[in-house]
């Protein structure tokens, strides 16, 4: 093998992912061209829809909140070398936890409910993740397949519960009762109004603050705690971890349960924050977007936040887009999402050899010049 130089960090975590992202967006542009629309116009509408007016910001950040949670969920499992494809199901079951807590513990005062709601989501989401985690850790069943299966099982279970158990008497629509008004997460525009600041109303709510706190907590957890260290060790080399006295199975279960709990926080935003009741399929694929978000953000909370913002923008801008250009529906956003996962995830190594070669050549020449 020829001599190569280690790529500096700014290329590794900055330039390379950016190059892949640009390629994904370029291909998306080609798709827009192929269906006979103007990509420049599309980008303009997207940006206007996402940031052009005050209300749009709120919507963008509301979507961002969901993606931060599901992105963090994927990242924590990924640091342990696991692919948690099950964020969708974990968030769905987490939603059940929030709803049950809000409906049956409605005598609790608001501040306590905030904590209880969060705990209920965490417990349900983590419990749903525990089974695939246990099966991976103790029985060697591949977590990718089992989490996919658990998404479908969750979906069937929730349809059953919503149709047969949670649906109020006399109602035909399969959804739960409304959560009492005093137990809902306050909207940011209401909170701002209480402080005397006027803001356009949007679904953005307190869970956005949770999302920021969760990002910081995950960063602290992964890089500054023993468990985080152990999880990363197991993730990079389970055999070495065993020799170092760490039992991989234990950390697989811990990482998956934390992952499930993080995914379930999405239910706080959707159920406690916006819909105020449990709806069928309220997760709407946000769990899968989390994969794209985490991969783009290189599984670092800061990167995840930026990627989540990008996808929040795409979702909100995409809604505007389907309004303005009828041939381009929300599906355009799904296409972009797929391309981003493809280019920044699956083909992340595509440019690496070439970039390494160019960088090596440049370094060698510079070293030679310095020596001369």
């Amino acid at each position, binding site marked *: *093998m020829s001599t190569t130089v280690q790529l500096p960090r700014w290329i590794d975590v900055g330039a390379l992912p950016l190059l892949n992202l640009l390629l994904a967006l370029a291909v998306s542009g080609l*798709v827009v061209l192929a*269906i*006979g629309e103007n990509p420049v116009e599309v980008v303009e509408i997207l940006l206007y829809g996402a940031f052009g007016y005050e209300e749009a910001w709120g919507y963008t950040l509301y979507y961002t909140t969901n993606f931060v949670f599901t992105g963090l969920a994927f990242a924590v499992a990924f640091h342990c070398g696991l*692919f948690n*494809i099950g964020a969708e199901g974990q968030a769905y079951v987490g939603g059940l936890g929030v709803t049950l807590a809000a409906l049956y513990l409605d005598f609790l005062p608001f501040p306590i409910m905030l904590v209880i709601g969060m705990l209920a989501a965490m417990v349900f989401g983590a419990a749903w993740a525990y*089974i695939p985690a246990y*099966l991976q850790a103790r*029985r*060697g*069943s*591949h977590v*990718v*397949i*089992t989490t*996919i*299966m*658990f998404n*479908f*099982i969750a979906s*069937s*279970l929730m*349809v*059953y519960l919503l*149709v*047969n158990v949670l649906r109020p008497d006399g109602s035909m629509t399969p959804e739960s009762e409304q959560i009492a008004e005093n137990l809902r997460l306050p909207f940011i525009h209401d909170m701002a109004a209480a402080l005397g600041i006027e803001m356009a109303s949007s679904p953005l709510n307190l869970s956005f603050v949770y999302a920021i706190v969760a990002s910081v907590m995950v960063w602290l957890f992964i890089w500054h705690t023993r468990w985080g260290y152990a999880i990363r060790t197991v993730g990079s080399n389970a055999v070495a971890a065993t020799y170092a006295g760490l039992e991989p199975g234990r950390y697989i279960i811990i990482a998956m349960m934390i992952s499930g709990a993080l995914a379930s926080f999405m239910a706080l935003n959707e159920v406690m924050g916006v819909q105020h009741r449990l709806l069928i399929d309220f997760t709407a694929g946000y769990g*899968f977007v989390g*994969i*794209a978000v985490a*991969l783009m953000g290189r599984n670092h909370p800061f990167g995840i936040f930026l990627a989540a913002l990008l996808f929040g923008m795409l979702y909100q801008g995409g809604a505007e887009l389907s309004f303005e250009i009828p*041939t*381009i*529906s929300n*599906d*355009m*956003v*799904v*296409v*972009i*999402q*797929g*391309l981003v*996962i*493809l280019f920044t*995830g*699956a*083909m*992340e*190594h*595509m440019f690496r050899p070439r970039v390494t070669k160019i960088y090596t050549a440049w370094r060698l020449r510079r070293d030679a010049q310095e020596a001369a």
Partner: protein
Amino acid sequence: MENFELVILLLDATLRTSTPLILAALAGMFSERSGTINLALEGMMLGGAFSAAAVAFYMDDPWIGLLAAIATTIALSLLHGFACITHKGNQVVSGMAINILMSGLTALVGIALFAQGGKTPALDKAARFQPITLPGAEAVKDVPIIGPIYFELLSGHNILVYIAFLAVPAAWWVMYRTRFGLRLRAVGENPGAVDTAGIGVVAMRYRAVICSGVLVGMSGAYLSTAQGASFLQDMTAGKGYIALAAMVFGKWRPFPALAACLLFGFLDAAATRLQGVILPGIGEVPVQLVQALPYVLTVILLAGFIGRAIPPKALGRPYVKER
């Protein structure tokens, strides 16, 4: 007698619901036995279904539609291969990417071409695969027992159903009785040994994903031009994942996978039939439970409680020739 007829009808429906599963499960098997995880079955099926319906609509010929479906899924398989085999990307991520991409792209192109909210226009009779009456079916129709079995159950399906059931022994033969099959299984177990024997691992794996593409294309075409009469948005509705589950349930082997597909197809057919039916002693059957059963059974199998499912040894690992 009435119960007998009911059973025949249920089994008849089972054959129809399990056909796309069989084709897709075999597709998954070819890819995974060569060492490439194929989570993209769902997306490929969707792409195939869309191409088949769109092309059959323009050409008024289901066979050209079928070819278009196969061409689409081969292209997607090559994309998957390009990411996973050539660039050694993550196979799970690539599969998920293709699923998400196709879910959006089929709807987007559908709206751009036909402006019917992501559907393709309904296909008329000439553009669809029609039921085939097997020779002598009319003659034995009124013979008790044999008559209904032959006329109702075996005869009267479209060509793709018969192809799917013939594909199982064919796949078995290719996999276990040909040089190609031996090499394919070998690159999935021990690519290093295959390389040492002077056979290109990369080329072998590409051939395997192409086989996979051909089969999954047929299953997609079946959905939109044989079972249904148009493409509907997200019409696969998890069938690709069920096929994947069936393949795992069949322990990556053709005949057990067929059995799993028939079981899952039967559960699907039964769930449709049991909707709202009140069984004596049990009460109303929770349809959702029946629908979730394939996934639950697969998880139990994977957990090793009913036999062990051992995947190919090199599954999911890109081949690196030298370090």
